[in-house]
């Protein structure tokens, strides 16, 4: 029988696979969760990270003081050093713990009742600093202890001077500290790497479809019927590949649009980053991610077709989903600066591009080209492998 229609067969297969997938509740729920909920969660994570990185600079030190009336000079010194002092009535250990559990105060400074008399008698005046080491305020606590130490040294110096001894004898060394960290810049770099998290779901959008249309169809034994039709193995594989990739592209496109909204709301400026992307540029970023979708779909289909059972396909394709996490884990460890080759590596390329855009860098055409070339070549190789696998007798005998 002659063909009377010009519709390519890969399109016929792709259309049918998409139609079936979009009728499945599980696929739709997954799509919805990953496009809406996931970017919101990543946004929350990034927001928390930024908040934590900038909190020290913004917040200052809040200190509760018990028995502060005994040492007005000490309180004045603390206030002079920008410590927010909150005077409290005497309280027991339990009440102090309860107060610290609110995580508002860096610590509670309790001046013991005998503080003023010991101080007057030039004996070590007892005072206790209560703090909660789990409250993530270590840096502020150390700063506070430094202020108290400086105050004590000042008093000691004054007392020695009153006895005709130079306070300099107490200071045989004079240490000065210079911090070369650029503050928010370091955290900004880390946050830039975290932007790659927005690309993680690309491995999940089409996963179930890639497995179901290959290993699933093989296990349900409907593949033989399809393979006995007047259609090349490559057309059949291409239809399934493009369907899985289309789902990944639709999912990623929607997810990046939501991510764009999330990033616009984040205070990235505080990290030396910014997200002022126009819609045309956003479209370019999404289009540049399409080869990644094609690569992921192809590899998932090839892996699923290479598996003997549906479960094996789930396991092997599942391992693949951990791949996008690798740059997120490895790159901060290597502490590499952005290099051109990075754009050629799938996922890492997209992440690097996202990072460059957030840093407001103009990256030129080459990175875009590199981001497309290798994933497309790998996708082609994976589809060829899958088609060859489908033509093999071993595969036919297994259906």
């Amino acid at each position, binding site marked *: *029988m*002659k*063909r*009377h*229609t010009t*519709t390519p*067969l890969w399109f*016929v*297969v792709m259309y*049918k696979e998409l*139609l*079936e997938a979009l*009728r*499945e509740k599980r696929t739709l729920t997954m799509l919805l969760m990953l496009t809406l909920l996931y970017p919101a969660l990543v946004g929350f994570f990034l927001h928390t990270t930024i908040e934590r990185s900038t909190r020290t600079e913004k917040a200052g030190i809040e200190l509760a003081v018990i028995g502060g009336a005994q040492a007005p000079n000490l309180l004045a010194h603390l206030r002079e050093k920008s410590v927010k002092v909150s005077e409290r009535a005497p309280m027991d250990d339990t009440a102090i713990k309860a107060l610290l559990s609110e995580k508002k105060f860096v610590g509670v400074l309790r001046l013991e009742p005998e503080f003023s008399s010991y101080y007057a008698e030039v004996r070590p005046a007892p005072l206790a600093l209560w703090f909660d080491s789990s409250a993530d305020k270590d840096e502020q606590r150390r700063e506070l202890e430094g202020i108290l130490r400086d105050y004590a040294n000042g008093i000691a110096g004054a007392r020695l001077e009153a006895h005709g001894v130079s306070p300099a004898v107490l200071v045989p060394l004079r240490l000065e500290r210079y911090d070369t960290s650029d503050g928010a810049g370091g955290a900004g770099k880390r946050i830039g790497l975290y932007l790659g998290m927005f690309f993680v779901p690309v491995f999940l959008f089409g996963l179930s479809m890639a497995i179901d249309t290959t290993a699933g169809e093989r296990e349900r*034994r*409907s*593949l*033989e*019927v*399809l*393979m*006995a*039709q*007047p*259609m*090349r193995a490559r057309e059949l594989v291409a239809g399934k590949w493009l369907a899985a990739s289309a789902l990944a592209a639709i999912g990623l496109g929607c997810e990046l649009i939501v991510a764009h909204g999330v990033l616009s709301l984040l205070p990235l400026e505080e990290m030396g980053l910014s997200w002022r992307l126009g819609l045309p540029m956003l479209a370019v970023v999404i289009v540049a991610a399409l080869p990644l979708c094609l690569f992921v779909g192809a590899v998932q289909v090839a892996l699923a077709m290479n598996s003997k059972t549906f479960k094996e396909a789930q396991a092997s394709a599942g391992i693949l989903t951990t791949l996008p996490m690798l740059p997120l884990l490895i790159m901060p460890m290597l502490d590499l600066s952005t290099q051109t080759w990075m754009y050629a590596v799938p996922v890492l390329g997209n992440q690097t591009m996202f990072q460059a855009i957030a840093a407001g860098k103009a990256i030129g055409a080459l990175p875009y080209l590199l981001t497309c070339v290798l994933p497309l070549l790998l996708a082609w190789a994976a589809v060829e492998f899958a088609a060859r696998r489908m033509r093999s*007798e071993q595969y*036919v*005998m297994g259906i």
Partner: protein
Amino acid sequence: MIEVTDIHKRFGAVHALAGVSFTAADGRATALLGPNGAGKTTLMRTLVGLLSRDRGTVGIDGIDPAADPLGARRNIGLLTDQFGLYERLSTREYLRYFGRINGMDKAAIARRIDEVTELLGLDDILDRSCRGFSQGQRIKVALARTLLHRPRNLLLDEPTRGLDVMSTRALRRALAAMRAEGCCIILATHVMQEVTQLCDDVIVIAKGQTVAQGSPQELCRQTGIASLEDAFVHLVGTEEGIAA
């Protein structure tokens, strides 16, 4: 017309086909009889070009499926023991899908869907999702798919299993109509009644070899046994062939 001459196929130490030869003519229904494991599935897969042969020749209306599998498949309607239905597609969508794969245009698909619906009595399930279909309904949909593109050659593996009496009769009518139109039908079956009622010729294969070919009457005459079932058992030399 399907012509097979001395085909061999080996899987490692297993000689799945060890010299099968036969001719199935146009306008005739040919029964393919053989015990389980005789090589029927391997033979059908070889005829549609899914498996290559080690030796011998195959012609599907003169086309060698090894050289031009797509050309051969265009002229074949294959129904195996697996129906290949999709649970999230309706019967109509399923038929459209295979119609498009077979290169039919929209109008032709619509027309043929009407025809096979009437032929096989699919009205009540035409727009229903294939999920939850009974065995009989599933086989009818698969048959409709097999007949949809009007193949000149039909390869049917036990097409009546699971069908009720009415559906079986509808199928027989459909096959008779296809045969009258000049279609070449090969029917693998274990039901001797079906062979005597439907088939003009019988091919018996055992252990990968053709052991006899002829009309049911000729096979009975050849073996000197009046019953076709007994003649078949005598030809394959085992009781194993009687499965239905």
